[in-house]
């Protein structure tokens, strides 16, 4: 009885979580400029309109460049951090890892404003590179977490065995460790890509005059007649995120299955 009540509650909760996202496609394909019921009929004009917009295309391009670069940088840095924290003991490890993980709990407004102030006072022009710097910073903790679980589930003697069988430290890493943490690496790349693609605040403050997808959307929010286009864009963005996340989760699980680690818990 009690279990069923909870079950119903949990389903309602899921509905609450998904309600906004489910509305996206409904109004993205609705033939009306105002987002309200009743619906006016099916159309794909908002998608067409969106992709005919030159600024938007530029924003998409920028976002992709930023997301790819920051996910690669963050994952590389994450590999170093995860390897250091899982394999070696040294004084000050806790605080050092703490600083690396700090962006996870610091409000983005603090991160972005302080970085902005420093960049401006150094006379650096804001463009997509400054966004990449910021995104790499906030993606790094997520990459580190994912990669730490990947490295942690590795038996340390695997690496020693490779070394014992005549490989060097580097070739042991390349032949044994890297293939085994590869699912974690891919998962980390996809996660970081998604985070960067969706990130607004840092892009808003650090992009200068360059649009990114979220800042473009933000700039259009003021114009009510743009709302359906934004719904269309949002649909694309959300669908992309979900696909990427599903892949990331798939790789994370495959990695766990491979190394025989048990599998509970999501990304956090």
């Amino acid at each position, binding site marked *: 009885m009690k279990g069923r009540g909870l079950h119903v509650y949990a389903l309602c909760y899921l509905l609450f979580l998904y309600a*906004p996202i489910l509305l*996206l496609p409904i109004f993205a394909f609705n033939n009306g400029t105002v987002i*309200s019921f009743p619906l006016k009929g099916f159309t794909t004009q908002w998608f067409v309109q969106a992709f005919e917009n030159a600024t938007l295309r530029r924003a998409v391009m920028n976002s992709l460049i930023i997301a790819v670069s920051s996910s690669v940088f963050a994952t590389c840095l994450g590999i170093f951090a995860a390897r250091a924290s899982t394999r070696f003991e040294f004084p000050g490890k806790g605080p050092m890892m703490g600083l690396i993980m700090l962006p996870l*709990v610091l409000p*983005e407004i603090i991160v972005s404003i302080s970085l902005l102030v420093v960049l401006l006072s150094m006379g650096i022009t804001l463009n997509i590179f400054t966004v990449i710097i910021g995104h*790499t910073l906030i993606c790094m903790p997520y990459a580190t977490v994912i990669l730490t679980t990947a490295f942690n589930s590795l038996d340390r003697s695997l690496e020693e065995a490779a*070394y014992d069988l005549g490989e060097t430290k580097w070739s042991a890493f390349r032949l044994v460790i890297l293939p085994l943490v590869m699912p974690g690496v891919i998962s980390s790349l996809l996660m970081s890509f998604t985070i960067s693609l969706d990130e607004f605040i840092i892009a808003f403050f650090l992009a200068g005059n360059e649009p990114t997808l979220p800042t473009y959307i933000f700039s259009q929010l003021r114009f009510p007649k743009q709302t359906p286009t934004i719904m269309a864009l949002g649909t694309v963005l959300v669908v992309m995120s979900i696909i990427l996340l599903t892949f990331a989760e798939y790789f994370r699980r495959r990695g766990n299955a491979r190394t025989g680690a048990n599998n509970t*818990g999501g990304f956090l």
Partner: protein
Amino acid sequence: MASGNRSQAVQGYSLIAPPFGYALLVLMAPLLTILAYSFFKDGYLTIIREFTLENYVAVWGDPIFHKIMLRSLGVAALVTLVTVGLAFPVAYFLSFAVSPQRKGMWLFLITIPFWTSYLVRVFLWKVILGYNGVINSGLKSLGIIEEPLTFILYNVNSIVITLAHAYAPFAILPIFIALEKIDRSLLEAGRDLGESRAMTFWRVTLPLAMPGVVAASLIVFIPTIGDYVTPTLIGGGKIPMIANMIQAQMLDLDNRPMGSALAVTAMLIVAILSLIFVALNRRFLKVRQ
């Protein structure tokens, strides 16, 4: 693979150096700069490098700051209460009622919305809750209401709903993890010793889940205080929170020392409140045990 303590440490340091150096350069240095700025004087368009407490005096004496800070704290507290309150039963359900094979699936479903564009989600709530929004137009077309409901947009309620939605998975996961750690035989022991189901929950499950609840509360409380997008979009700019105030000082008014003092003060207040919260709970938990 020589693993003397020293070579362990050397290898560890050389590995952690790139990410740590990056965090030092891109995070720590800017934070310290802000801290330094907060003690400088603002000349028009320049900064006078001269130690002063003026900024802090001004910030602490500013009634607008008091109002906005209190509002931010109030909103964050309310959001935390609502989010954690709504999340606890879900975490409990996940941990106790869902079969182990399906837990991963549920967790995945719960975390997915969190990873979709925050901006888009916030905007959607605006669309849903708006004067001519989904709820109002839906209810009107169903003939339930004549006039649009106005209590749901451009006020604190709508900010709370939006933020509670945004931070839901943050609240569920720590509680879920704490519940998962509870040895199930303890609960059986509780029942076995003659406690009712409700009393077992109250005397065994809840105290053991408290660390998760504390973690969940902090994890929701801290970022919501600093949220920028929601008050901007949902509040319609009429109910600014502390992030908007910092942004205005720093960029719109270009008063960096003042903005820095604001940011530092806000971070200090949040840090102190968090520490008090953790300390109180530790006390509370010890008494219970």
